[in-house]
């Protein structure tokens, strides 16, 4: 497991496919960024479980984070890693990313408000 490749589980992929349709957002990475921040915003430590990243959706870090805020996303991840009680090693950071990304995808699909584009944008800029 490394930061270079961000890989999704099959249920996460299925959920993202549905979200793509309802929101009109066509790109995996955009939805994934929303999901990650949604999870990071929640101060509770995620229930740690093994996530089987068995889907064929995979992207590298640069694609995931975008061109402008890569450092910031990484800093947020490291900080969260420390908050969750782990040393900010590369492996732990990658694990944190996977765990929070999947929890965030669950949040995205779970809240009715967040399944439309107006709802999604409205949740941050209302």
């Amino acid at each position, binding site marked *: 497991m490394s930061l270079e490749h961000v890989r999704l589980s099959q249920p996460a992929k299925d959920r993202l496919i549905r979200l793509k349709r309802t*929101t*009109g*957002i*066509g*790109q995996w990475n*955009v939805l994934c*960024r*929303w999901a*990650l*921040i*949604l999870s*990071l*915003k929640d101060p509770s430590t995620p229930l740690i479980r093994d996530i089987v990243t068995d889907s064929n959706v995979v992207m590298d870090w640069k694609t995931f984070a*975008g061109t*402008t*805020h890569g*450092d*910031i996303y990484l*800093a*947020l991840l*490291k*900080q*969260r890693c*420390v908050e969750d009680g782990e040393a*900010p090693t590369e492996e732990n950071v990658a694990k944190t990313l996977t765990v929070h990304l999947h929890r965030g995808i669950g949040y995205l699909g779970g809240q009715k408000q967040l399944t439309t*584009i*107006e709802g*999604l*944008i*409205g*949740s*941050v*800029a*209302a």
Partner: protein
Amino acid sequence: MLLRKITLSEFGAYRGEQSLDLTPKKNKPIILIGGLNGCGKTTLLDAIQLALYGRRARCSGRGNKTYESYLHESINRQADPTRGASVTLDFTIAVEGREHYYSVIRSWRLSGKSVKEFLNVFVDEQYGELAKSTRKRPELKFSKVLSEGWADHVEDLLPLEVASLSFFDGEKIESLADPDRAASFIKSAIRSLLGISTVEQLRTDLQALQRRQTISNEEQHLLDGVREQEQESKRAEQERKRAQQELDRLTEAHDEAKEKLEDAERAYKDEGGALFEQRVTLESARNAAATRLADTRVALIASAGGSLPLLMADAQLKAVSEQARRERVAAQAREVLDVLVERDTWLLDRLPEQAREGALKAMEADRAERAAAADLDVDLHLPANMLSQLEALTQTLDAERNQAHKLLAEAEAATEELAQLDRQLAGVPEKDEVHELLEDRAEHMRTVAVAADAVDRALQRVEEAKRHESNVNTALDRAHKDYIRTKVKEEEVNRINRFSEKARETLGHFSTALLQRHISRLEVAMLQSLQSLMRKQGLVKDIRIDTDNFTLTLSDTEGEEINPGRLSAGERQLLAVSLLWGLMKVAGNRLPSVIDTPLGRLDSRHREHLVDRYFPHASGQVLLLSTDEEIDEHLLGRLNKAVAQTYTLTHDDIELTTKVVKGYLWNAGASNVA
């Protein structure tokens, strides 16, 4: 035709190469060749025929033998059969007014058990051009074409049938003396020599031409075709007219329907026009709102790809910022600590003694504080510019949030407007009256559409009918033309038949007349010949030849028919000679006469007559083959002035070979009398 020269090589009794110049001189047509019995006179005659006709030659020495065995036996017994024998005949002939010089070499040799035969024909250089008639032999050139096709070519120059008339020996004269055989001889002679066969051939060819003209029975067939096409054309025209009428009718119906629709629309506008227009306005406003909402959504989706999610992590970003600041302070502290130790030492040295104590404490405390700052609990190794990045992010987020606000407001407004317009549209009251008018209008619109469709289809049918009609008319034209062509051809066939029938009839008359003419000329010539040859002047007064079966009838002074049986053998022989002479006269002396031992049964008076009156006048060239008893010294003296060349064939009884010597028997010395 003029025989120029014959060369025999190992042929029969002739050993080695023997050659005879056969060219006659002016007013001296006779080439006299003397020889005792068995010296090879007849062999010489055979050689001439063999050279020209090969397999087809009627050589006296051949009998019933096959051609190959005849050739084999003709090779001189002392010569090497594998080297073989040859006969060369030089002659000139006028073809189409030009004299040509030919040299025909027929040679053969034994190869294994079979005989190989070769034929080489040489012609003068100017063959086919205007050749000068010279007595000298011109340069000759081998002609492959003529050599291969000689059998056909010689038939053009001198047909075998004709040649056999001019080459005759004692036996032939003997056989002609028989009246029955004479009839068939006269028949074939007149036909081939006097050109009647050509006329007959022409008639046959014309008949063949007639047979080839097939009278076509397809005329009726073609006429039927024309009739059929005409009917088809009429049908097509009617079909087209029907389709046109249908089109007219449907167009009228369409126009009517359109008028009705116009009325309905007018009524609708008059009755419920305001509502109608309001509806249109509402619908277009709704569409505009829907478009605006869709556009806004697109912009929102685009903005979701920006920094917006980071807005949610406000607290986390603040923590990162704190951490970054701490890390920066630590870094700065680490950088200044060493410098401060040096500086503090330097500063303490400058201070007065009493102040040193307090300053040292303060400085150490300051340094300890700085060292503590440099030592962090948590070090995330954030990039040095993290703070400025966060600063920039804050500004970006502000801008994006404002933009998102605006977009959300727009989307909300558009959604609101859309919902309102939908409500309004749903709320437009449709009065029954207007509803009915609307229905009416829709009904008329449908009618118009149906009518227009029908008009379209009718138009297509009319076009199709027109195309069909033009196709049918083209076919009709073609059928007409075919019919006319056939008519013309039939006309032509009839004409050919008519004219060739006429021509055949004319040719038949011509043939009969020609035959009649030739026969009467032959009768006259023969009678003249006979009278000049016969000792008994008054015996035969008239000669008649039957035009149907070519039998000879002689009659005496009283007009009584003479039974040929009453004539003596010698007299019959004279009759045969006069027949040949007569034929040659009628044919125009074009061919050489070769006469072999002609005087066998004749008495001295008749011999003198022949020598004086026949031989010098028989033809332009007369090859006379004679024994010493036939043309003796006395007769030679009478003949001498007409003789161009004399040869003697001498036979060596020991070597069994014949040699050609110039001069006649006595003049040639005694060597021949062995």
